[in-house]
């Protein structure tokens, strides 16, 4: 496990404290006692405390990632709960939601309990998301209620879209009882076919099978309509297209209670980056055009999209060394998340407070987690950031077991300097 155990009294001094839950920003200090928040204020005197002088860096809530794949059980060669937790910690995350497409999938109360128990003493909090359907086969509902009792925080067949509208309706209806969100990977598979990348000028040139943007937006629109009909709670993962943004924006304007996330890679890259057939760019949904990228950024700015989530998806070297058509979808993203997102969003003149909110308070509210982290007596979840540091991302920055990221060698802006989580301090 990464990081060192916190001393009994620990004073974070000289911080630019950003509290996104209460909309406050001030220069001050935070005193921790036994890993819990003892006091937050402009000036705190604690002569016995060990002092961490941030030198004016941003001190804020620990990030919360609604979308990670930690591969345990089944593919521990790619990632384990422990290595995934360390990668999260390095990226400034203190809570993550783990998708159920493990082997076997998290489709029973017992498998949810396995993740909760195995994750209980790790460096970050891991919340399992349960499968919607048994075996993720899209047919029979899982024991949703029993899984919530064991700790499932949401439901998703992630990786596999719920193609059957009737099943989507039934899970949205049923979960009104449980008050947890349903997360559907929106891609109409009959439009995707054997598509490998966004369908557009680049797929035409590269001869790779195309996945049209409407394969996503059609299903997003269906899910929004079913949500309005059932009163269910929908969270739209990894929005990739301008068309989907338009449907979500219209639904929110109509008063629908829906949330959405975007990944740093969809904010950072466009389909032109696939020109060299680098399989690290192969993700689902695919990286789309520059127009889509700009639309996603604007949607995050205007609140249509609430959260930044990584879709951290580890794969082995040999799997990603396959020809493009056969390589699996996904890239890892925890360690590079803030630097990648802040680089493109600061260039687009988004406020730091708003970007932090998209990584902290917004995802916690979307899941119904406690979001008021800077309250006395609460276990400390703190991330310390230097938003001005420009750095080149490299393999040595990875704590994940896998290395499938195209961010290597890219220059990023803003760096997580330290993370406090589970009574431990991790410093870069």
């Amino acid at each position, binding site marked *: 496990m990464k990081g060192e155990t916190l001393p009994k009294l620990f004073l974070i001094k000289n911080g630019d404290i950003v509290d996104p839950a209460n909309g406050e920003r001030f220069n001050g200090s935070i005193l921790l006692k036994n890993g819990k928040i003892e006091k937050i204020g402009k000036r705190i005197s604690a002569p016995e405390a060990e002092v961490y002088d941030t030198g004016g860096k941003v001190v804020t809530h620990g990030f919360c990632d609604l979308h990670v794949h930690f591969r345990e059980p089944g593919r521990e060669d790619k990632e384990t709960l422990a290595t995934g937790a360390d990668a999260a910690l390095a990226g400034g995350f203190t809570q993550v939601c783990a998708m159920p497409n493990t082997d076997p999938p998290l489709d029973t109360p017992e498998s949810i309990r396995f993740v909760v128990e195995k994750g209980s003493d790790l460096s970050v909090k891991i919340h399992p998301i349960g499968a919607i359907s048994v075996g993720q086969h899209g047919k029979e509902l899982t024991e949703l209620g029993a899984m919530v009792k064991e700790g499932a925080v949401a439901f998703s067949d992630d990786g596999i879209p719920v193609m059957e509208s009737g099943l989507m309706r039934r899970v949205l209806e049923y979960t009104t009882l449980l008050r947890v969100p349903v997360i559907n990977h929106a891609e109409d598979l009959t439009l995707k*076919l*054997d598509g*490998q990348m966004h*369908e*557009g*000028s680049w*797929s*035409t*040139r*590269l*001869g*790779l*099978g*195309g996945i*049209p943007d409407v394969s996503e937006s059609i299903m997003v629109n269906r899910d929004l309509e079913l949500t309005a009909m059932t009163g269910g709670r929908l969270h739209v993962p990894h929005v990739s297209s301008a068309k989907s943004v338009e449907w979500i924006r219209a639904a929110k304007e109509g008063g629908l209670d829906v949330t959405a996330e975007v990944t740093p890679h969809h904010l950072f890259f466009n389909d032109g980056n696939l020109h*060299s*057939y680098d399989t690290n760019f192969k993700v689902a949904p695919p990286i789309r055009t520059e127009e889509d990228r700009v639309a996603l950024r604007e949607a995050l700015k205007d609140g249509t999209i609430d959260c930044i989530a990584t879709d951290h998806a580890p794969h082995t070297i*040999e799997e990603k*060394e*396959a*020809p*493009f*058509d*056969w390589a699996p979808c996904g890239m890892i993203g925890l360690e590079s998340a803030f630097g990648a997102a802040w680089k493109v969003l600061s260039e687009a003149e988004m406020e730091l407070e708003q970007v932090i909110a998209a990584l902290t308070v917004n995802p916690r509210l979307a899941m119904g987690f406690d979001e008021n982290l800077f309250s006395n007596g609460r276990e400390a979840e703190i991330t310390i950031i230097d938003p001005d540091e420009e750095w080149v991302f490299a393999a040595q920055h990875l704590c994940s077991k896998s290395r499938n990221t195209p961010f290597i060698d890219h220059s990023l802006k803003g760096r997580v300097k330290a993370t406090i989580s589970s009574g431990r301090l991790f410093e870069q």
Partner: protein
Amino acid sequence: MGFLSKKHLLGLAETPRKDIELILQHASSFKEVLDRPIKKVPTLQGKTVVNLFFEDSTRTRISFELAQKRLSADSVNFSTSGSSLKKGESFKDTARNIEAMKIDCIVMRHPAPGAHIHLTHYVDSVVVNAGDGTHEHPTQGLLDMMSLMEAKGKLDGLKVAIVGDITHSRVARSNIHGLLSMGAEVTLCGPPNLMPVNVQELGISVNYDIDEVLVWADAVNVLRIQRERQGVSYIPSVREYRDLFGITRERIERLKEPITIMHPGPINRGVEIDSDVADSENAIILDQVLNGVAVRMAVLYLLLGDQPEAS
């Protein structure tokens, strides 16, 4: 290092006009060798070429092999296809093992687009693309241009139609890039559900009316048609395809000006093209096949040769 501006021949999209011109010039010289009683020159003696075919092919493989033998290179064939490709040794390991035996060049056909770019990351040998999925087939594009050049005397300003399934055609992509570099005009024709999105951005026109296209064109390159691909239906029936896009005898007879007929093979007679048309005097389909050997000799020589050929 060879005589072209790049180490490998991966596609015509990134091959500059001067390289294409050089290849076509040398191909004409090598074609003369093929008319000699002894059809062999010592140009690539001592060079070793491996033909790595991960997809079924008869004519392209034979054509490359003959080109290698005519140039006195040593050649070895490796063929595999189907499920063994995904389950067995990785493509990287296969390539590295072969290269460890000291070779100079890999000619590869692979069903996955872009596989050749990956191959250049794994080996130091010169890589020649003999077809990568639905991406490019550069030597086919070159032999088509050589054949057009012979039939029409020029490429600059020539009007060329490509008819059929454009989306899944590596032949179409290589022809488009090569012909545009050489100053030709290209119009595509075929079912709209087999026309790639934004294809006009490559610098070509699209016209779905085959009769208009045939009136416009100096030459037509007819692609092989498959009704289904991986269980997905694109073309309702052969009858309907012939009716809307087929290069039929009636259509060709209606034309006032003769049109040059090309086909990359293998031909589905009676489907995309009538036998009468394929065997007519305006068809240069067998010239394409012969020119294939000459073009591949030129490519191998220019990539692997030590001294410029006196021509």
